[in-house]
């Protein structure tokens, strides 16, 4: 199945650069991001807060607040068409219709003064030219599809009458209403409690199987990744540092940052006194280090790491990594690194 997916990329992001021009300087929030989303697959975009995950997703839909933000370079190819160059009108026809997004905050992402039914029906009337009654009927169907009990009654309620989990289901119903080809889920479960998280992820998986769309999940939760994703792209300081299959993530991560993320998870199978955190902080997007952005925090960094940024190199089939250690140029003192990476 994976091979078949490889042939049909739906969304290709190439060297995407989104910068914010503020009084304090230029913030390079997204600084050359590349990834491919194939038909029917689920890609996880993982990273710490401030790594540029959400900005990447907003950039795909051209939803960056401008000013201060601007896409300064790169391409976002959706079925071969570059969205960066698309007109506002073309973008409006794509948003909510072919590419939908679910945001992190279900409590505030719905308009408080309209019923949830109206908010779902609106997108149907806009993109599918349905009449008022048809759109309402389909909105009720969508609520039923996302598992909301007594949808006829719920459709007439305002968001404040619904719980957080219910509201996120409504957001999913809005996103799914027009049967999009790509669903971007920006931390869809972060604001929800654990039992609801599992339900929402399960719902997204079910709908993906029924409707056959591609999903990009943005998260900092590696548990969510392992549960839902086919592939994972790890982001650090505005760049993808590693891409691999979700199965490999916990066994075969190569980049020191990815390894650090995995090692910082609490383990149930070992006795741990303390969690192993990654030392230091994400660099300020206003002042990126000269070489690899992770070098100042990397336990293995050599001289070259502080002077030049490595390329994202093919490490294996379906596995790319951006780290000097895995290049022929590496002359570092740390030949144990590769073994350590394989072992962990």
């Amino acid at each position, binding site marked *: 199945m994976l091979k078949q997916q490889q042939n049909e990329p739906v969304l290709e992001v190439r060297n995407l650069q989104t910068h914010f021009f503020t009084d304090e300087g230029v913030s390079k929030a997204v600084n050359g991001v590349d990834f491919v989303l194939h038909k029917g697959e689920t890609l996880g975009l993982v990273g710490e807060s401030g790594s540029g995950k959400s900005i990447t997703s907003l950039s795909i839909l051209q939803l960056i607040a401008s000013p201060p933000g601007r896409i300064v370079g790169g391409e976002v190819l959706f079925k071969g068409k570059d969205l960066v160059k698309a007109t506002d009108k073309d973008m409006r026809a794509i*948003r909510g219709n072919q590419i939908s997004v679910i945001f992190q905050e279900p409590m*505030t992402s719905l308009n408080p003064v309209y019923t949830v039914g109206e908010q779902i029906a609106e997108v149907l009337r806009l993109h599918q030219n349905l009449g008022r009654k048809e759109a309402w009927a389909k909105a009720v169907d969508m609520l039923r599809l996302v598992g909301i009990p007594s949808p006829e009654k719920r459709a007439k309620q305002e968001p404040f009458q619904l719980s957080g989990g219910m509201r996120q289901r409504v957001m999913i119903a809005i996103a799914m209403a027009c049967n999009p080809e790509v669903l971007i889920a920006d931390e869809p479960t972060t604001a929800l409690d654990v039992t609801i998280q599992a339900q929402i992820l399960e719902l997204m998986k079910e709908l993906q199987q029924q409707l056959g769309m591609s999903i990009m999940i943005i998260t900092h939760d590696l548990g969510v990744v392992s549960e839902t994703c086919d592939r994972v792209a790890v982001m650090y300081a505005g760049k993808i540092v590693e891409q691999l299959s979700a199965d490999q993530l916990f066994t075969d991560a190569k980049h020191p940052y990815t390894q650090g993320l995995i090692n910082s998870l609490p383990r149930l199978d070992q006795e741990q006194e303390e969690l192993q955190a990654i030392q230091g902080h994400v660099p300020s997007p206003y002042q990126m280090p000269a070489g690899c952005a992770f070098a100042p925090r990397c336990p293995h960094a050599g001289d070259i790491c502080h002077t030049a940024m490595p390329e994202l190199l093919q490490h294996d089939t379906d596995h790319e990594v951006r780290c000097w250690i895995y290049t022929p140029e590496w002359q570092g003192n740390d030949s144990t690194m590769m073994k350590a990476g394989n072992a962990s």
Partner: protein
Amino acid sequence: MTVFIIRRLLQTIPVLLGVILVVFIIMQFVPGDPAVLLAGDGATAETVARIRHQLGLDQPVLVQYVQYVGHVLQGDLGISIRSQLPVMKEIMTRLPITIELAIASIFITIILGMLAGIISATKQYSASDFSIMILALLGVSLPSFCLGLMLMYFFSVKMHLFPVTGWGTWKHMVLPAITLGASGAAIVARMTRSSMLDVIRQDYIRTAKAKGLKPNIIVYKHALKNALIPVITVVGLQFGILLGGTVLVESVFAINGLGRLIVEAIRMRDLPVVQGGVLVASIIFVLVNLGVDILYRSFNKRISLD
């Protein structure tokens, strides 16, 4: 909703009783004896005493109050000392003019204020934003009698576009309505701007954009309805200020409305007319507030019924 409206209506009863009490007490403290004024210069003490007795002013204050409330409840506001006509009749001939003026003014306040506020917010820091905010500052700062005289001078005396004084046609209405509505429009513009700026940064506006909606729909459907919630309150308060403002504006433009009636009555110590006028104005204000509450709730259903 019906329960809410009935409950709010019942709540207005004690408010109105309180209003009657306050108006009555204030009139007790106004210096000058209406009986003396009515009797005229050189009247004998007996004449004054007789008039005082006729008006019931020789009774204890409490008795006067109970009698007054009783009459008010029957729609009887007394007899004007000056014209000897029923106060109710005097007020009813003047009230429609003031209501026309107030409605025209509140219309200017709402339409002009909101439009300016929306333009300001959607084009923040642009030239139009700055000009609107400077105009709004002027509108808030300029006293209405000053603005009224300036408008009258330029548009009526110099340019002959509108009549200088009086009431009757829509042309008579333009300048007084602008004079009365200007400061409210300025306040509403500033309020709408800040409220809109707050709302357009909300997550649900981002959701609306992500749905693929047009910018106009996002602003006028998704943002405005939320932004109007605090603005409605301000408009309600403005209506009260506006009722007070009619007194000045009607005097400047020589309009025979309720405001001018009250001013004349105060000058003449025509107590029943002053009491009646203030009472009617208060009732209107209470009713407008009731309307605002109902409107407020229909915009924002999160407000509980209690």
